[in-house]
Every structure is written in structure tokens, then in C-alpha cells.
């Protein structure tokens, strides 16, 4: 099982969560990330692709090319079964992390 590094703010978990909603391509992922976090999470755009490729090489997501009218073709990503399990584990781990840190920060 691939371990997501929550302590360093790894964007992998967020990307997995977004891709659990639907298949998306890179630019769309960034736009959704901004929209769904009210622009609180705003990645430097180029850093998205190393993150996507890393998740793909870990087998958590899979990409496919799709032709687009009047634009370069796009690479769409979807969650794999391993990615779904990683998302479940990562979400639980994140909630434990937040609960633990809240326990300190709220005192």
C-alpha cells in the first residue's frame, strides 16, 4: 500500500479525491481544486504534472489520451482500484492527523 505523506502537505490525496469524483485532465483538475477549495489550495500549475505522473507510476491513477476539437488532445486521469483503496486509507489517516493536531491547536 502506497503511503501518502500528509505531514508535508502532499497534494496526492487531494488529487485522488478529485479524481474519485470523475475522470479529469490536468488543467481541469487545477481548476476544480481552486473552485472546490475557494482558491485556498492553489498549486503552482506546473507542479501538478510531476504529482500526476508519480501517482500514475504508483498505480493509483491511470491516464488515457482523448482527442479534442480545435485544441491539442488531452490526457485524462481516472482512479484505479489501488487508488480507491489509497484514498480510503489516506482519508482516514488525514482525519486522524487533523483530529490530533486540532487537539493541540484548540487548547
Amino acid at each position, binding site marked *: 500500500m502506497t503511503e501518502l505523506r500528509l505531514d508535508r502537505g502532499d497534494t496526492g490525496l487531494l488529487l485522488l479525491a478529485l479524481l474519485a469524483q470523475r475522470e479529469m485532465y490536468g*488543467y481541469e483538475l487545477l481548476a476544480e481544486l481552486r473552485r472546490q477549495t475557494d482558491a485556498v489550495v492553489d498549486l*503552482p500549475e*506546473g507542479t501538478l504534472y*510531476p504529482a500526476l*505522473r508519480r501517482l500514475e507510476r504508483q498505480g493509483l491513477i491511470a491516464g488515457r489520451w482523448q482527442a479534442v476539437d480545435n*485544441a491539442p*488532445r*488531452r490526457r485524462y486521469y481516472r482512479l484505479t482500484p489501488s487508488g480507491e483503496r489509497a484514498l480510503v486509507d489516506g482519508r482516514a489517516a488525514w482525519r486522524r492527523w487533523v483530529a490530533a493536531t486540532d487537539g493541540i491547536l484548540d487548547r
Partner: protein
Amino acid sequence: MIPEEPVAARLRAHVDAILSAAHLPAADRDDVREELYAHLVDAWASGVQGGLSTDEAAARAVRDFGEPRRLGRQLTGAFHSRLWASTIGVLLPARAEPETRPAIVTAISALLLVLIGLVALVSVALGVTQPPVHALAVVVSAVFTITGVRLARAGLLRQQSWGVGAALVALTAMVVEGMATWVSSGGHTISLSGIAATLVLLGTWARWAELRKWTTGSFKGPPRPQVLGVCALVLSSWVVTPIVLGAPDPTQPSPDDLHLEATLRCGPGTFDGADVQQLGVVVDWDWERTSVLAGGIANLPIAGATYVDGLFLAAFDDPLVSNAWVLIHNQIPFDVETGSEAGWQGSGPPAQEALPSSWPQGGIDYAIDWFTPQPHHHYRASWTFISQPNTESPTPWPDATVRYQHVNQWSVEATVSCGKALSGR
């Protein structure tokens, strides 16, 4: 919405800059290129639809995408293990196009190629003329050096300051070796590669600012152990080869494996009816061990220089055989138990340069077959001399020095006087 030129070219150039700083598997490179370009086009189209001019939209798309070198490194890390990405991946981003290289970089690079060729040639030459362990060590250290020089050259061509540093270490080693060759030959041998390296180093000094500019974009603070490792690889041949060749090869016999006994027999004799003085040199020896490998005492396909085989020499402290003493008989090396021959007589007095400088002129010699000797067999060789028959006064008995020279590796030497046997090991 697809951008037209020159906007498209500007977006493509940004993608190229990112990829030139990344080290990606060839199979993925075009995919990544296409994906990043598609993103920039989307970002540009979004800007245009938001009311920006095409140029402004392109500028914003490029700016928001991020700094190429940083993204290149991140992409490298995404495709390779952390260890790989932090070492070779950091050290070796894509190389610069040849037409952008300063002449001094091209000169250094060319000389490094020459160095690689020279190291390979020397290692082959030494590899086939040395005993097995020596040969192996020489070849392995040459492989290390070639690897180091190739890494240094790769770093140089990829505008890395560590590459320039490692390349200069290699050139400096060439200069030092050239000077050592010149000095050791008494000024008779000039190393062309050493001269070329000197000229290029001088050129480097003169064009240092150009080189600094060349490495402006170099990764800051590459891992020091790796850089030192590259320099160590570069120097390995220069350091290892002399050390290895100066040490005994464990597959070969050592002086401890040879039991040698020399005897000088002095007394009256007759020759052609005349009373003469007779002088006999007898050398007996046996080997505790000939070689750990099959095939005799010195598993060498070719010998290094003066001696082709093991060699026995005898010389006298008197001005010599040709004057006061005449050689009347010699028994070439033979196996005492079986009577079979184990060597041959030298084709004349050994060349003076083959003898120790302290030896008198006119020694005589036997070579021994390197493939013949067997451990614990008893071998013998002898020479018999008489004094010149027409000499009226007694000729002083000389001392004899007997020397066994093992190829070019080691020797055993003993001086023996009349009637006194001397053992040497």
C-alpha cells in the same frame, strides 16, 4: 482554441526548457511534452477568453506554469527513484545544444574523449602483458577512470559546475602524468596528451569568465559525496595502477618460493694437455611453488621489457671471462631427476642494460622455460671456465655473482667465493 505563431512557439519553448532540465525515460518524453503543451494552450485560451491579448495570455500562462529547471527536477523525481533522482538525475539534466557551446567547452570535451581512448589503450596494453591479478586491477581501475571521465564530460556538456571541476581534475592529471613522463625519461619523451592538456588548461584560465557564464544555470550545491566520487573515479587509474603494479601478483611465485644454491668450484685442471686453472659455477634450485595457475612460473603471454622468461645470470668480479677466463663448457638448465632440459643458453652476453649497474661487463646467462618448471623438482645449470692457457702466472680466483631474474618482477642474487656454496632465497 489553438494559438498561432509566434505564441505557439513561445509555449513550446517553455515546454522544451522544462524537458531540457529533466531526465525522463525516452518512452514518456513525448507524452509529457504533449501534456504540458496542452496545459499551456488551455491556460493561454483561458487568458484570451478573459480579455487578455494573445501575447499577454501567453506570458501569463508561461509565468503561472512555473520555473523550468525546478519543474524539470520535479519531473525527474516523478519518473525515477528518490536515490536516482537525487544523484544521477540531479547531476545529469539534458545536455546543451552543440551550437551554444563555447569553444573552450568543446576543447575540454574533445580532450576528455582523447583521455578515454588513451586510458582504454593503456589498460589493454597492460592487461595483456601483466599477470592475471595485476591485469584485472589495471582494467577495473581503467573502467572506473573511463566512467568518471564520461560523467565529468556529461556534466560539462550539461552546463554543470561540478562537471567543469571534474573535467579540470582529469586534465590536471594528464598534465602531471605528462610531466612525470618527461622527467623520468630525462627529457627525451614528450607526452603529446600532456601538452594538449596544458594548452587547454591555459585556455580555461584565459576563458574562465566564459566557463562561469556557461555554468550559470548549474544546480546549486550538487551532493558533495557524488562530486567527490566522480573525481575519485577519474583519478583511480593514476592512483591504483602504480600501487598494484608495485605489489606482487598473488598468482605468481615470489622470492620465497625459490630455493637457490650457487657454488663456485675452483681448482687445477687440464685443457688440451696443458695445466690450467678450472673454475666451475653451479646453480641448483627448486621451486616451492611455480604458480597458482596452470602453466609454469609466469603466466605472462608477453613479457614487459628486457626479459622474456626467468633468467639466470652469472658474472665475475674479475675483468672478465673474455680476458682471463675462457668458457669451455656449459650445461643448460635441466631437471636433475628426469634429465630433461628446462631452458636454453642466452644468445650471447646479456645486454648491459639488463644487468644491475653494479655488475661488471660480460655476464653470461641462461633463460629458463617458463612453462617447464615443476614444484619440488631439482634443477641445475652450470658453466665451466679455464684460465687462459698461455698465462704464466696464476690467475686470481674471482668471486662470482649469480642472479635469478624473475621476468621483470623480482630477483634473487648471491655472491659466491671459491669453495663456498651460498644459498639464496
